[in-house]
């Protein structure tokens, strides 16, 4: 039987990279949630094993309908929450609306998806759920109150849910990348002056990462090789966090 895997944020960055890797395996049926299908048209066109779902995770109240309509008969073996937004703002400008917006995508949509994925109807025993956090989930940076707090919130989700789902041997882990070359990072760098960008890059002892550098640990966590691993935070950051 094919393994069904669900990825959010599938149209760019790490989500797209892991999708490309998973689609090399013909035993995997991949479901990808994203907003702009044109960004991965090549993946959609060439793969019978890939179902793209155009869905805006801001619409949390529609997640239930998503499971009813698109995933009614599907029991997932894996889930990776890659969707995420970031914003650099001093706290004086962090209005409740802005905080809600960043939490909506980074945290609340993940919890709502997991609410359905945790049901027997929608997941197999032994499944693996992975939430993309960030080293910023454990560390801080000026102007990142929203991003850091939302990524830290995911770590709490991981630990609690790992315990709740242990009975079904469903594993829940977080991956915390450092700065990886993605569209999101480009946006981040655009907001910073050159000196700051140089400084951030120099803080990664073996350089900033590529998306392909993160794919390996995701493949490991999805596989049975990690079947004794749950509730953990995996920092993968070129040494950023050890200084």
């Amino acid at each position, binding site marked *: 039987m094919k393994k069904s895997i669900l990825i959010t944020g599938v149209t760019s960055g790490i989500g797209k990279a892991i999708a490309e890797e998973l689609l090399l395996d013909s035993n995997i049926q991949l479901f990808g949630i994203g907003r702009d299908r044109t960004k991965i048209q090549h993946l959609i066109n060439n793969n019978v094993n890939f179902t793209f779902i155009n869905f805006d995770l801001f619409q949390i109240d529609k997640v239930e309908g998503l499971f009813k309509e698109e995933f009614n008969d599907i029991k997932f073996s894996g889930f990776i929450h890659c969707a995420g937004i970031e914003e650099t703002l001093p706290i004086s400008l962090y209005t409740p609306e802005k905080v809600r917006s960043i939490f909506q995508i980074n945290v609340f949509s993940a919890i709502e998806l997991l609410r359905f994925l945790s*049901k*027997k109807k929608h997941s197999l025993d032994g499944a693996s759920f992975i939430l993309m956090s960030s080293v910023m989930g454990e560390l801080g940076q000026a102007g990142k109150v929203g991003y850091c707090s939302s990524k830290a919130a995911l770590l709490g989700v991981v630990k609690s849910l790992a315990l*709740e789902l242990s*009975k079904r041997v469903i594993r829940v882990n977080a991956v915390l990348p450092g700065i990886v070359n993605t569209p999101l990072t480009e946006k981040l760098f655009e907001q910073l002056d050159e000196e700051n960008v140089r400084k951030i890059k120099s803080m990664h002892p073996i350089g900033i990462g590529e998306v392909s550098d993160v794919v390996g640990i995701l493949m490991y966590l999805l596989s049975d090789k990690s079947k004794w691993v749950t509730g953990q935070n995996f920092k993968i950051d070129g040494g950023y966090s050890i200084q």
Partner: protein
Amino acid sequence: MEIEKFLKLLVEELELESPLTVTTNLKELEEWDSMVAMMLIGAVSNEFDMTLSAKDIEEITTVQSLINKIGVEKFS
């Protein structure tokens, strides 16, 4: 709430393998454990706006005993 509807709701919310009757002893279900107890407290709280205590959970045996705790007047 109709008892039939309540039984179905419990099966759904507690993710039970087989249907319930009012005489089913919840504690003897294969699925029964602290997580299922937590799900039961949540389901009752959502439907009846009341919070079952640890003592309530300890005392519950059959579905009927649960209905008695919630209040028979709330069922038809």
